[in-house]
Each structure stands twice: as structure tokens, then as C-alpha cells.
């Protein structure tokens, strides 16, 4: 059987790559994709802990399902915002979206 820490290390690697992407990318869509990576890493952790520590309680899977729901909501609104911004400003770089900054 595969030991737990293998799964956790993969999830940690994915999370750190997502974090790196969020901080380093300038394009809003790319930032959104990196956030998806981080959310998926969390999901993997939740399911791995469920399987290895408490398979008789369903809570771990349940939390993963809620992460799915929240991610779907987040992406749909986020992408709608991006399309709207693109329509108005012709630009989707995070650094240039400074209308509310002074």
C-alpha cells in the first residue's frame, strides 16, 4: 500500500507551484488557473486524510465536494469579471488594472 506521505508530498508540491504561479504570473487568467491548482492540492489532502485516518467517516470527501462547489462558483464569477474587464479595458494584466488605486 502507498504510504500517506507520498500523497501529501504531491499535494504540497502542487500547492507550492500554484502559490508560485499566483505570485509570479501577471495575466489574470493564469492567476486563476494557479488558484485552481492550489484548490486541487487541498482537495487531494482532504481525500488522502479521509482515506488514511478516518475512512469510516465521510467528512473528508464531503469537504472535497464543497470545495468543488465553491471552485465552480469562483471560476464562473472570476471569468465573467475577466471578460467584462477585457471588454472595457482591452487588457487582462493584473498590474494594469489599477483604476481603484491611488
Amino acid at each position, binding site marked *: 500500500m502507498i504510504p500517506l506521505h507520498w500523497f501529501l508530498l504531491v499535494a504540497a508540491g502542487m500547492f507550492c507551484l500554484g502559490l508560485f504561479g499566483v505570485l*509570479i504570473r501577471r495575466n489574470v487568467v493564469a492567476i486563476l488557473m494557479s488558484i485552481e491548482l492550489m484548490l486541487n492540492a487541498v482537495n487531494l489532502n482532504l481525500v488522502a486524510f479521509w482515506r488514511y485516518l478516518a475512512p469510516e467517516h465521510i467528512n473528508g470527501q464531503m469537504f472535497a465536494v464543497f470545495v468543488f462547489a465553491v471552485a465552480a462558483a469562483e*471560476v464562473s464569477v472570476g471569468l465573467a469579471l475577466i471578460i467584462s474587464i*477585457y471588454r472595457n479595458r482591452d487588457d487582462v494584466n493584473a498590474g494594469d488594472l489599477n483604476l481603484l488605486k491611488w
Partner: protein
Amino acid sequence: MSLTPLHAIFALMSLFTVGGAVGVVLNRNLIYAAMYLVLSLFGIAGLFILLEAPFLAAVQILVYVGAISVLITITVMVTRCVFCKEPPPRQLTLVAVMAALVMVTLGFVIMTRFGGLTPAADVPADSIEQLGVAFVNPQAYLVPFEVASILLLGALIGAIFIARDDLPRDEEAVGGDDHA
């Protein structure tokens, strides 16, 4: 520790997951980045199957690959930003060091706290039924479930409202119902 076919599958799926993540972060062509994201999400689905959660694996493909990534791909195409110039990253070294530090810390905690742990028990045969019952059990997850559905409804309406093109521009077009 003997290597079984399970280990090989795990290695392949981890390769998809982490390799895909690297592709997402580093690829400057956004369509390619989106395809790497799909690869990474497939890897996660494979890992879910290895963790004996086939329901989540199917939902992962349905929601993440079939819906979220399609939306992202289409947004990339619609904003014609596949080749748009992304300014070069600033503070690359600082960010890389930070991410590496987080990784080292997480790795240290994982290895000291959870190193070599194997499953406590077998997955009950009716785990999918348990999941379904827990969703509608007032003692368990009924309220969060309903809240999540309201969140999704709100996101649906909000996304349509934000992204639509023909917003009324002048006072006349707003309509007379709720004039304050």
C-alpha cells in the same frame, strides 16, 4: 517495501499532476497552460481513484475538466489573449525562494508527522451511499448543502449579469419598477 503496480500508477498520476502544474505556471501560451491544467486535473482524478474515492474522481472530471477548464479555455480564446504580451515577472527569485521555503516546511511537517502512515481501516462498501445520506441529514450537512446551492445560484446570476454585453446604458432603459 515491495513495489506493486499501484506504485507505478501512483508515479504516473503524480507525474501528470505535478508536471501539469509546472506547465500551467511556466507556460506563457495560455491555451497550452490550460491544457496542462487539464492534464494536472486528470492526474488528481487518478489519485482519487487510488484513494478509493471513485465518486470524487468522476465528479473531478465532470466539474473541473468538463466545466471549469472548458470555461477557462473559452475565456482565453474569447479575450484573444493567447499571445498577448505578459510583462516579465518581477521579483522572480524572491517568489521562488518563498515557494521553496513553503515546500520545505510542508515537507518537513509531513515527513515528521505523517511519514510512512498506512490506512487505518478499509473503506466501507457503502461510502457513496453514506455521502448521499450525509447531504440530506439535518444532523450532518443539510444546511451547508443548501448554502452551497444558494452560492451556486448567486454565482450563476452574478456571472450572467457581469458578463452580459447589453447592460442598459441610460436611465430610460433601466425601467420604471424600482425608481427611488
